[in-house]
């Protein structure tokens, strides 16, 4: 037959493969934090404009995920956890991932600028740049601190949500950013302590491998200590209140105790109970972020009825 028969034998990517390029699980966290940033802001936003704003932030985050998969296809192919991603598994061509990443980035930024304001669009553009270029291209393969600085990319969404509503940046949005920024390293390193990773094979420097597990434990406790004042400080701003403060005190105490438990252990203890403490602290860190942003939402809801706040 003709050329077409050659094409017939190739795998044809379906919608799900393209959707997987956008890292849907990361996107769900982005949507949640951006939505909180938008809803706690003092200015009301028309629901449809708010919806389009969140959609643009989600698509922008997805686009940066696609750019990351394009750039990191060589690393992903060498690690078990990521070898099944669309590009290393051959379901989507690398060039397609690049095209989709760039196309969706432009779409999301322009639509956000037209639907809301230029500051929000600029912050979204900067977030995509930060994740795709600063984190993926510059830091990830160069330094074990990649998690620390790269975490900024994940911390921007509530700040963009706030900018969608207010058109500005303020102490509240900076502290929401700082909360996620400071939370990312201990959250990730708790994971790194119990997951058998093959980052070493892929040539990605990880703190557990470059500086050892003891140094990682020290880093977890130090970053958790630095996180506490940020979380409590956010409670003193106009979006905080007694409910948030109560949640923050409990969650910070819980997280801090977990970090201290990790700090006191050695490898023998970890092996003995199969990393039970590290696994539980990792779970606590997930509850921690959800509880803080959930409490901010509760404060915002209470304010509607003249309650909450200071």
């Amino acid at each position, binding site marked *: 037959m003709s050329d*077409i028969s050659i094409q017939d034998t190739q795998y044809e990517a379906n919608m799900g493969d393209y959707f997987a390029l956008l890292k849907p699980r990361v996107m769900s966290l982005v949507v949640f934090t951006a939505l909180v940033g938008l809803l706690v802001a003092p200015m009301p936003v028309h629901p449809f404009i708010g919806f389009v704003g969140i959609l643009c932030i989600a698509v922008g985050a997805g686009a940066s995920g696609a750019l990351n998969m394009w750039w990191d296809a060589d690393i992903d192919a060498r690690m078990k956890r990521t070898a099944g991603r669309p590009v290393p598994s051959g379901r989507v061509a690398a060039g397609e991932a690049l095209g989709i990443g760039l196309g969706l980035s432009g779409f999301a930024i322009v639509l956000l600028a*037209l*639907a809301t304001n230029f500051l929000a669009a600029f912050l979204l553009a900067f977030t995509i740049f930060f994740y795709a270029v600063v984190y993926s291209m510059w830091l990830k393969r160069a330094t074990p601190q990649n998690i620390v600085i790269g975490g900024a990319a994940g911390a921007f969404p509530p700040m963009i949500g706030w900018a969608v509503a207010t058109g500005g940046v303020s102490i509240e949005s900076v502290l929401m950013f700082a909360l996620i920024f400071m939370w990312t390293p201990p959250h990730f390193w708790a994971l790194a302590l119990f997951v058998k990773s093959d980052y070493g094979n892929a040539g990605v420097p990880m703190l557990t491998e470059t500086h050892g597990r003891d140094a990682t434990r020290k880093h977890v406790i130090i970053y958790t200590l630095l996180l506490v004042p940020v979380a409590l400080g956010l409670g003193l701003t106009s979006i905080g209140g007694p409910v948030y403060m109560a949640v923050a005190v409990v969650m910070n105490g819980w997280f801090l105790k977990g970090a201290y438990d990790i700090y006191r252990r050695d490898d023998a203890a970890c092996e003995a109970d199969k990393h039970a403490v590290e696994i539980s602290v990792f779970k606590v860190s997930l509850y921690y972020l959800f509880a803080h942003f959930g409490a901010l939402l509760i404060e915002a809801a209470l304010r509607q009825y003249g309650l909450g706040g200071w």
Partner: protein
Amino acid sequence: MAIKVEHEMHERRRGRNMGVGLLLIGFIGIIFGLTVVKVLQLGDAAQFEKFDHVARPQIVPEGGNN
């Protein structure tokens, strides 16, 4: 080789084509919805004329510059 109107590829790509179609319809819906919301937010739909690219003397309020 017989040229078929329905190639096997059409069947194979059906899911993908439907997906792209739905995305385009969604996009149209978003732009339409945004337009409705933005025009209604002007308060007076006649204000929409101000977005024209040329000066429109007839929309300058009475008693304004002649």
